[in-house]
């Protein structure tokens, strides 16, 4: 069977091999019993190798998601997992560890017979990531699994390790022929081979390029799946459905009608147990460079020809390329950063960032950032996009608010209405997922008095239950060879291209006192000043 990515894409015509074959994007149905089952995503047989399997990501997300997928028959009969880490575990010990993780985090209750069935496909290889003999043992295990569990040579390599190991692992896989470079013209020797990497992809443009280059030396872009779990969220995908499956809004989705957009990703939590990571990353690297620029590109992109792989990603990249990075000298006019101090969240006192575990008492890591970006293209010229994200905000909320322009002429002034608020469209990503539209309406009575009202669509009201977990969705997509919801090399690098000048300017700036904001507030005063300078105000989401 020809792997999906080899049908969907044509080979590199540039260094990125990023183009689609527009008329060959749909995988042919070869199994007649699959006809009509397009809504049932079932992964083909494969072996999944998880590097760093003893880590938190595997226990909390990957293994529970895989168990749930297996129990709901979304995975093929012989689906197998080979865990790799430094721990000296046997297969049995590995299975016991994974059982504990699954029992704690999976949706499907674990029973002995269910676990026995799932665990029969779990195997373990112990060793350091730079140990050549480990890769030999891994290769032997993969061959064995192919023979005994009909995985057909299909392999999904998942890098759930700290990013510092990525290049070592990728190079070793290539050197040991455990992965082969696959592209459009070359038929695979055995099955498909794909590589899944977690964010962060680098911590600046240079390191992102280095990592991407290392991967491209071993596999083609069509084999690389960069996970940003935000893209697996139902409501993020619904933003695309809202824009491109309805005729009503697209005609006004441009500079002629939109005044500005606000994208907010607020968390009420602090750094929890991620202090060490967060000290290095900060709000810009943790949230803005990845999740928020993904949201921006989805809400600002041109309509793709199809909802498939590179067609969508091409449009997202075009938007990011049109974003004007804040010029070095004026970074402070386009950004505001801050760090949370002690305060109150939901009536309880919480410590300041510098009092958190694993955080330096003199830390200058930002836990809040607000940024104004302009998109220099035909659709969005002169429309500012305001982005803000922070920890210890008053509430957890992610939303995209599209503020439309005021009416050009208010004909109701004589009747006493001197102003009406402009229309506002809000896409709520979480919680209370939905869409609301603010518009003016007449107050019942004998006078022509107006008031703004809200029209609401709530996901729960129309669909009831929640959709699949983001990781389940993305894992299945990777196994099926659908890259639509994964970040492409040029997306990641273009995002860093926007962020790098900000980080450089901040680094050059002597931080004598990072503005503090009280936990439970919407950020430092500089953030308000950033938007008020333009005659606008932040929404209270």
């Amino acid at each position: 069977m020809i792997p999906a990515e080899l049908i969907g894409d044509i080979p590199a015509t540039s260094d990125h091999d990023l183009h689609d074959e527009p008329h060959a994007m749909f995988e042919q149905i070869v199994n007649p019993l699959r006809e009509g089952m397009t809504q049932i995503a079932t992964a083909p047989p494969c072996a999944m190798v998880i590097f760093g399997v003893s880590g938190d990501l595997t226990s909390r997300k990957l293994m529970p998601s895989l168990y749930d997928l297996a129990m709901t028959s979304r995975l093929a009969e012989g689906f197998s997992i080979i865990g790799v880490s430094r721990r000296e575990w046997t297969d049995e010990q590995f299975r016991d560890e994974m059982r504990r993780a699954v029992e704690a985090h999976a949706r499907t209750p674990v029973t002995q017979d269910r676990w026995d069935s799932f665990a029969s496909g779990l195997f373990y290889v112990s060793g350091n990531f730079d140990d050549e003999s480990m890769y030999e043992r891994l290769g032997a295990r993969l061959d064995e699994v192919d023979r005994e569990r009909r995985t057909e040579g299909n392999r999904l390599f998942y890098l759930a390790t700290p990013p510092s190991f990525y290049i070592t692992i990728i190079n070793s896989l290539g050197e040991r022929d455990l992965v082969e470079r696959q592209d459009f013209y070359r038929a695979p020797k055995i099955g498909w081979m794909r590589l899944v990497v977690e964010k962060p992809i680098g911590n600046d443009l240079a390191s992102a390029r280095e990592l991407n280059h290392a991967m491209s030396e071993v596999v083609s872009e069509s084999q690389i799946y960069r996970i940003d779990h935000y893209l697996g969220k139902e409501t993020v995908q619904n933003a695309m459905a809202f824009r491109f499956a309805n005729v009503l809004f697209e005609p006004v989705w441009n500079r002629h009608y939109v005044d500005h957009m606000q994208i907010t990703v607020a968390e009420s939590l602090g750094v929890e147990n991620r202090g060490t990571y967060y000290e290095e990353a900060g709000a810009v690297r943790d949230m803005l460079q990845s999740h928020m620029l993904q949201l921006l590109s989805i809400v600002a992109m041109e309509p793709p020809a199809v909802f498939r792989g590179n067609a969508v990603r091409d449009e997202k990249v075009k938007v990011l390329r049109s974003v004007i990075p804040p010029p070095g000298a004026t970074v402070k006019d386009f950004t505001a950063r801050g760090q949370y101090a002690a305060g109150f969240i939901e009536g309880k006192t919480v410590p300041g960032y510098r009092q958190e575990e694993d955080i330096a008492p003199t830390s200058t890591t930002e836990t809040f950032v607000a940024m104004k970006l302009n998109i220099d293209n035909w659709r969005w010229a002169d429309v500012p996009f305001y982005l803000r994200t922070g920890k210890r905000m008053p509430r957890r909320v992610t939303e995209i608010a599209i503020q439309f322009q005021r009416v050009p002429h208010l004909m109701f002034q004589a009747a006493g209405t001197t102003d009406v608020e402009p229309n506002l469209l809000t896409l709520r990503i979480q919680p209370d997922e939905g869409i609301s539209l603010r518009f003016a309406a007449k107050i019942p009575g004998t006078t022509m008095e107006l008031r703004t009202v809200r029209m609401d669509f709530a996901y729960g009201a129309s669909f009831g239950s929640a959709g699949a977990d983001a990781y389940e969705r993305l894992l299945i997509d990777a196994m099926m060879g659908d890259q639509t919801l994964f970040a492409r090399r040029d997306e990641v690098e273009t995002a860093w291209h926007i962020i790098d000048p900000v980080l450089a300017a901040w680094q050059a700036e002597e931080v004598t006192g990072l503005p503090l904001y009280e936990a439970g507030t919407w950020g430092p005063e500089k953030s308000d000043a950033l938007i008020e300078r333009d005659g606008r105000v932040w929404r209270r989401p």
Partner: protein
Amino acid sequence: MMTGVAAIGGADQKLFTGWTADSVEVTRIRAELSELWRSWATLHGAPSGDILPGDREQVFMRPSTVNVIAVTETIEEAQRTAELLLSLPDYSPSRSIVLARHGAGGGQPFAVQLFVDERVLHRSSSPTRIEVIVISAPPGHDEALASIATTLLVPDLPDVLYVPFEPVAPNPLLHNLRESCDGILVDTVSARDAGASLEFLRACASIRNTLGLGDLVWTRLRTWRDLIAQFYDQPAALASLEFITDVQIVHAASGPDVRSGRTAALLIAGWLASRLGWRTPGELIPTGTGYRLTLRSGGRGKSREVLLHISEGTSDFSCASLERVTLTATGDQASTFSVERVGESAIMTSSSTPHVPDMTRLVHSSCPPDNVILAAKLRRLRIDPVYRDALEIAATLWPEGFDL
């Protein structure tokens, strides 16, 4: 007139009111519904439509989904259907209207019951309103029932005609309503006359191509179809599809509640035959242990026989659906693949192909209760050509005169 709190449709308590009359007035139904909502607001301390105080703002709202008109024969059936509609785990209809064609009669022959409820269907969503209206009429008032039901529909929503029990012919009410609805949903699990029920659905399919048509039995088969298809996703197994020579389908026998897996067996046979291009020369032939039929596969000059066996099983876990399906291919591409329900929440697959060790696995598949199945089907009721193809063959398989 009776008004009160009912524990219908599960542990949650719903408000209800009811009355009998010589005729049914739609304006009274609307007024009584409004009154019930006012009572609800009083009981729960917040006027409906207003924002609830608390740490999270919540706004009450009506689900924006579908209208359901359920057609039943008796008051008992109507009552059970109302319970089912009030207990849907999600995708509750915006309004459900349950009609009983053979009410009690007597001095005031029409009876009306109204149920209202507000529920949070998902933890991150706001509460939604649920309304179920039950109307029973004495025999011979089909046209009146149809006109009342259509007047009560919430505008601008798809209308689904739901037949929860066996469709009884002739049925002017069904005939009247099915012309104007957007979808028809039947549950043939309780069909005493499998052939007639499938034939009814086949006739519905011919009304127009744009009609959404569904059978909850088909929805219950989703996991089975998926697991069977999954085996043949493997390139090595795919080739054996053309060499299948034997199909064994074992289904649940009819229980005390009349529910059985008979139509499930016919539909799965119809699905395999339609997808794999097997030709059906006639009806199933009774044997001592079940039924059999020799189908033909392959084109001219390459024609082969496929022996289809359908029989009743004895398993306690069959969920009124299938117990086991086994597909055997012979010759160069020999393989055996079997799917079997082995527990209330477990299905086991077993496969055997040359040169590879035999494999078994267990997947979690509970016997979904009717409210879960109904909600799932309402959510995705659409034109399904694969189902229609399967139905077309299934309806012709069952021999006349061999029903319960």
